[in-house]
């Protein structure tokens, strides 16, 4: 019984997803750590948005997709930081949803 209860992820966190230019990867990773994220996951992507088509074919012209599972508090800090530092000058979108996590203590 106890096991079953354990297996149902019932603690809620935010999942913040950032899609932006490859060139920002290092900068953003550093910022995320300073803002208190316990971790992040990145994958390569391509796409289209208000700043036109972005494709990974040509070296630095691709996108990355960053996911951060974190507390409300940290999520707020992250979106705020992105908005003020990058949103005006770089191709970037951010969205956020609720997720249930298995081991809440792993996520700031």
């Amino acid at each position, binding site marked *: 019984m106890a096991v079953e209860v354990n297996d149902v992820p019932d603690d809620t966190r935010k999942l913040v997803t950032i899609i932006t230019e490859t*060139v920002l990867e290092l*900068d953003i990773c550093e910022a995320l750590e300073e803002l208190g994220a316990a971790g992040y996951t990145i994958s390569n992507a391509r796409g289209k948005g208000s700043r036109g088509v972005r494709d*990974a*074919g*040509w*070296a*630095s012209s*691709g996108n990355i997709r960053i996911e951060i599972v974190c507390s409300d508090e940290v999520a707020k800090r992250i979106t705020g930081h992105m908005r003020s530092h990058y949103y005006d*000058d*770089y191709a970037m979108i951010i969205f956020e949803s609720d997720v249930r996590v298995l081991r809440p203590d792993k996520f700031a």
Partner: protein
Amino acid sequence: MDPVIWFFALGLIAGLAKSDLRMPPAVYDLLSMLLLLTIGLKGGVELAKAPFGGLAPQIVAVLAMGFLLPFLLFPIAHWVGRLARADAASLAAHYGSVSVATFAVGVAFLVDRNVSYDSQLPLFLVLLEVPAIVVGILLARRGRSNVSWGKLLHEIFFGKSIVLLVGGLLIGWLAGPDGVRSLEPLFFDLFKGVLALFLLEMGLIAASQARTLRQSGLFLVLFGILVPVPMATLGAVVGWAIGLSVGGTTLLAVLAGSASYIAAPAAIRIAVPEANPTLSLTASLGVTFPFNIFAGIPIYFTIASMLHGGGG
């Protein structure tokens, strides 16, 4: 015409015709690594063969040219082209810096004609990459620097193109002609083939700039075609003045007349984020690069030959 240039044309046509021909980014990376290492190694081996004397004054002259070029370009872009300050500074940084691919085509051009060139040219290639980028950033920031220079210079100096060029130079110099012999099949014998594949991809990339080109109008095209020749002439004069051979003079002209599309875009995107990155890249890749490999290099060779009293 050198067949490697046809590969550029093939890529360009395929791209404009919306072919599904793509080169995977990993292959592009491999090809550019090979080109950079080859250029470095060749230079290093030459340096090992004919140890240089009195290089210091040449280095000073070349660096001075590197710092000067963006100051000449910025006013044209800002006042003639009516570009915003950031965009004009970005363009100045791109055109003041250099293009490795153009240099490689220049080398192939000279090798085809059995024209030798001074061994320090790959070193000059390295020296010319950085100054214009620094000046461009200063121009964009009007001297006010909220740029974290330490980090930025680190990024430029340890950027992969400089690491591979300088690394190749040092290894070639340490190993000398004999030590490098066993590396020749990969790095030297395949050089033209690798360059051909690389130019195929450059053609595809240039084609992808075409739409921006149509949008941004005439100025970019004119800038991209009219600016290289006077810049290259300046480079040729400097090369001739510091005592380079005809081949070396040609290559310094090629460097001056070429525009960066790797180091500059990456650095400027971070340091001058408000500059529109597609403007400079389109001019550099979509206009100047093709101009240089099709028309520029032979012209610069003629200029160099004339400076050295030949007929071209």
